[in-house]
């Protein structure tokens, strides 16, 4: 039911986004908007999907991959690649091949780092969030540092490639990203049922014959891949996952991943496409979508803390 409504909403938003106030060359405009739309759809879906998986893997509902520094890590890996390969080689390399390597590195680092963090027996969510925030700040400071190590003249040539945002979706990667997202979704779909059991906790899950540790690692890998996709396409999107996933829990009222995951993904798509549409048609680009998301998301996070504290 909720799924149906969201699908309709998304179709409406997408149609509006594609057709509203079309001027000039129809072909050109449609192609331009189509690419943007595809990018945002992929990002919205990845963010929603990965946030719900991450919540289950970490047994709480306020951590999201971006709060834990996943997307800053990806930006750091990108910058490091440019630094070690050299600017010229980096720019010449096939974008898709590069993306593949970066995703691999990301999966490796993220799995190691967060496996270690989550496996320390620290069940304390707040410590984890704080650690994640610090890691995020550290990764971006490190990125800044590496960027400065690159020759300033060379760096200006890199900047566009490295830092995408909503208005300049990285177009080289659209097809690869789409294939990746579909592939990951299809392969991880059967896992969702087992994740319902994982959500019960380590002991119960093991008692019920589900390998808790293995599944958590596998979900973290899925999360790492999806975050790489979304960050490569539009750059870091803090808080979108938090808003979307919590809304999905409230709308579906269930713990079953087969419902919450698609709903969260669709919500992400609707939020991004609808938000961008409203911004560019009615507010005339006076601001960026990411600014609004981080404003609303920060307030919502404080509200969540408040609710937890009152409990």
């Amino acid at each position, binding site marked *: 039911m909720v799924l149906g409504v969201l699908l309709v909403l998304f179709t409406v938003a997408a149609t509006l986004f594609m057709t509203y106030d079309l001027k000039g060359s129809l072909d050109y405009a449609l192609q331009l908007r189509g690419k943007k739309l595809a990018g945002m759809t992929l990002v919205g879906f990845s963010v929603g999907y990965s946030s719900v998986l991450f919540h289950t893997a970490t047994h709480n509902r306020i951590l999201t991959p971006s709060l834990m520094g996943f997307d800053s890590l990806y930006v750091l890996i990108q910058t490091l690649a440019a630094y070690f390969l050299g600017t010229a080689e980096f720019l010449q390399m096939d974008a898709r091949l590069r993306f593949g390597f970066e995703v691999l590195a990301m999966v490796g680092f993220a799995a190691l780092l967060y496996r270690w963090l989550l496996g*320390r027996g*620290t069940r*304390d969510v*707040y*410590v984890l*969030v*704080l*650690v994640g*925030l*610090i*890691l995020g*700040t*550290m990764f*971006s*400071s*490190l990125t*800044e*540092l590496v960027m*400065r*190590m690159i020759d*300033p003249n060379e760096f200006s040539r890199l900047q566009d490639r490295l830092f995408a945002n909503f208005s300049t979706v990285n177009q080289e990667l659209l097809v690869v990203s789409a294939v990746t997202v579909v592939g990951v979704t299809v392969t991880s779909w059967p896992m969702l049922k087992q994740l319902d059991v994982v959500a019960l906790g380590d002991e119960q899950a093991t008692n019920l014959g589900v390998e808790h540790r293995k599944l958590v690692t596998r979900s973290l890998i899925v999360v790492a891949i999806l975050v790489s996709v979304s960050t490569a396409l539009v750059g870091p999107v*803090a808080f979108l996952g938090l808003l979307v996933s919590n809304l999905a829990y409230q709308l579906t009222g269930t713990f079953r991943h087969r419902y919450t995951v698609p709903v969260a993904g669709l919500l992400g798509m609707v939020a991004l496409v609808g938000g961008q549409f409203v911004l560019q048609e009615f507010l005339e680009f*006076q*601001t*960026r979508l990411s*600014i*609004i998301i*981080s*404003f609303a998301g*920060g*307030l919502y*996070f*404080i509200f969540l*803390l*408040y609710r*937890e*504290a*009152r409990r």
Partner: protein
Amino acid sequence: MTESQAVERGGARVAPPLLLGLARTLNGQVLTTAAVILLAVVSFASLFIGVSDVTPLDVLRLDNSNHQTRVFIESRVPRLAAILLAGSALSVSGLIMQTLVRNRFVAPSTAGTMSSASLGLLVGTLWFGSASIFLKMSIAVAFAMAGTVLFLALVQWMRHMDIIVVPLAGIMFGGVIQAATTFFAFKYDLLQSLNAWLNGDFSGTLRGRYELLYIAGALTLVTYIFANRFMLVGMGREFAVNLGVHYERVLYGGLCLVSCVSAVVVVVVGVIPFMGLVVPNLVSMVMGDNLRRVLPATAIGGAFFLLFCDILSRTLRYPYEIPVGSIVGVGGGLLFLLLVLRSRSVGR
């Protein structure tokens, strides 16, 4: 969890056995003296690190027309002074804040003070662009003060908060304010200037452009005078009132001092993350909690830490410079991470 437990858990200062042993054998004074000597040596060395080749001999010649001497007087000495002032002022204001709010993870950068100050700076630039830097700074101070008080109200409103949730809420609060700042900066095409403010940097410090920092230095001295009163307030309202301290007045006075210091640093240097957080914690690991005793050591430690990072920023990518904020972000972040993880693994 009761409040006293929370305080106990957060207040438990844990140091590695080696450091503790060292601190016990050497008393505080010896340690402080050693630190002062070390700081003096490093400061002296820092005067001769940079793109222009300046040697002590050039300076001793005392020839004002000489290029080396001019670099020395116009750039190197002001830079050193700015670093020492900013480093000690930021660490001490972190220490005061931790004492007043009774949470050792609170500092100007985790309580929205810094973000509010940069919002104030932006507002000042937008609406009073032609006005003097002093007016802009006053606006930044007012915003920093308002932001800090708002944060304190938020903490009190949430009441039974875990010691670690307070900085978390503070960072989020700062993030919301920063989003608002970015909103206005984007709208009025000031995003680039904003990014320059947000990343602390000493490469533009010249004679005539850093002197406002002496205000921060003076305010830091004032905190020393009131140290005992701040400590009593840190023991809780009832305790403080019983001992005849005007609780509200001292609490808000202290926060006002901290806000002023942070705002001045943001206006002159830019945002430097983690300073007010890491340095006081490290110092009190070794020297304990007595504010009056710890305060000078914190000031020296902060100055030393920032100077060390700045020397790195000058030499890592010679002849270019890396903003010191990035280096402090990496080093300070690492230390903060260790502090947080350690507090929990031992505290439980």
